[in-house]
């Protein structure tokens, strides 16, 4: 589904991602782990097109998408649920969801858009009933947990084939994290391909099929989730961070 080869990217003159390659088969879940500053967020933003590719290639189902604009990649099925949620706070919950459907509607014929949007909204409200109750509230008025739900729901509105999630559990209460991972498990069961970025590794590795560990912009090692979990180098990566909570 997603093939990244020798990707180099960054901000300004800083190379935050250096020669990163990865391969995500359709329907699988990849967890990208690493300490703060490893380049995980840059990697996600470059895959979705928010940051330019300096070198290397990003291919989606064999098609090179590395020169496409962000919105064109979204139309092809790549959607990022960004770090910090980035809810549009002055728009209502429903308007946030409608914006999320933009890529989906661009794939549809003009005459069918109205119906497709109505159906997608209905689906989102079934999946996240709390959003239905608050559909007219400004996005900024939701609690942190509700905002994370909205961020995931909004990303799903585009009916992505590849969903990138950047730290979906960041800043959430443990109970809320359980709920978020519950939703992700349901998406996995539906066959959606997921790339998940988390700093703390245990939860993500339990959930993922494969893992990839980054540090200072490089891939240190990767493999099946079990291989990564049992790799003695994993503890070293997080040493000095908060090794115990990470494992």
């Amino acid at each position: 589904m997603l093939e990244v080869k020798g990707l180099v990217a960054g901000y300004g003159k800083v190379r935050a991602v250096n020669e990163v390659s990865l391969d995500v088969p359709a329907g699988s879940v990849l967890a990208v782990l690493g300490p703060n500053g490893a380049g995980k967020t840059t990697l996600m933003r470059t895959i979705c097109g928010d940051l330019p590719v300096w070198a290397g290639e990003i291919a989606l189902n064999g098609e090179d998408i590395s020169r496409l604009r962000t919105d064109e990649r979204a139309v092809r099925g790549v959607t990022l649920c960004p770090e910090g949620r980035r809810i549009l706070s002055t728009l209502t919950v429903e308007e946030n969801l409608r914006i999320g459907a933009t890529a989906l509607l661009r794939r549809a014929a003009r005459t069918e858009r109205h119906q497709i949007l109505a159906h997608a909204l209905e689906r989102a409200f079934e999946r996240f009933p709390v959003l239905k109750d608050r559909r007219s509230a400004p996005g900024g008025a939701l609690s942190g947990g509700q905002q994370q739900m909205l961020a995931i729901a909004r990303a799903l509105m585009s009916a992505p084939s590849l969903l990138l999630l950047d730290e979906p559990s960041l800043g959430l209460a443990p109970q809320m994290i359980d709920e978020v991972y519950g939703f992700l498990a349901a998406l996995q069961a539906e066959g959606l391909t997921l790339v998940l970025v988390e700093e703390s590794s245990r939860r993500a590795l339990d959930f993922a099929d494969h893992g990839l560990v980054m540090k200072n912009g490089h891939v240190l090692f990767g493999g099946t989730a079990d291989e990564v979990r049992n790799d003695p180098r994993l503890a070293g990566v997080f040493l000095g961070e908060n090794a115990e909570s990470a494992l």
Partner: protein
Amino acid sequence: MTNFIQHLVDALSVGSTYSLLALGLTLVFGVMGLVNFAYGMLIVWSGYAIGLLAGWHVNVVLAVVAVIGVATFLSLVMGEVAFRPFRKAPPLTLLLTSFGVSLILQASVRIIFGEGFRRVPTPSVLGNGLHAGGVRISVLQLVSVGTGTLVVLGLYLLLQRTTLGLQMRAYAEDADVAGMMGVRTERILTAAFAISGVIAGIVAMIWLAKIGTVQPSGDLNPTIKAFIAIVIGGLGSIRGAVLGGLILGVFESFLVAYLPSVLLPYGEALAFLLVIAVLVLRPQGVAGRVVELSR
């Protein structure tokens, strides 16, 4: 009492024009964080366009459409050529660019049309008036309040009820996220400059009908009025632009009416005192929130 009502009518008429001016300026600010100081040149160019069209004896309806067309075209060109390349630059770069654009547009007016005032012909019917209980309301005043109301209503419907409006509001708050969701972000800037140009063309006709002449440096006054209005109302807020324009109109009209004649020359300065007062008491403006392009 009659006097008071007369001043109120005048204030509404002036205020609605300021509100219109402010709308065109605040829309582009809301979308890309640019206070476009070249905005007033759209009015000046519209003024010369009116002069040419009148000289060619173009039908009034056609001329109105043509003037709006000229302002929209110029606004789009400045958006594409001067501002799009800097859309990710710091606000100061955008601000300086807008001064540059303004100078270029002004110099080209001087080269093409020369220095000095030109009369802007207006349909004579605009000068007619209605009298009711000692209060005089001119057709022009009715037209300016009516047009102001229609434009505000139209813009509100566009932003709140259409997909383009939704996408513009999303882009205004977080352009990157809008792109990630599939919004064709390059079209949003085009739309903002187009709408700003349409509004500039409309307000130009009212503004110029009121002052009757145009000159190369005639952009300064409308730009400053629009700027004061959006600062009072809250930068980037549609409601703020409307309120700010009306407040400025009321303030100016009543100042002229009730200020002792010795102080009248300082009327402009007093308008800035109002701005300072707003900035001190309510820095986000009367209707402003921190970031928005909304009601």
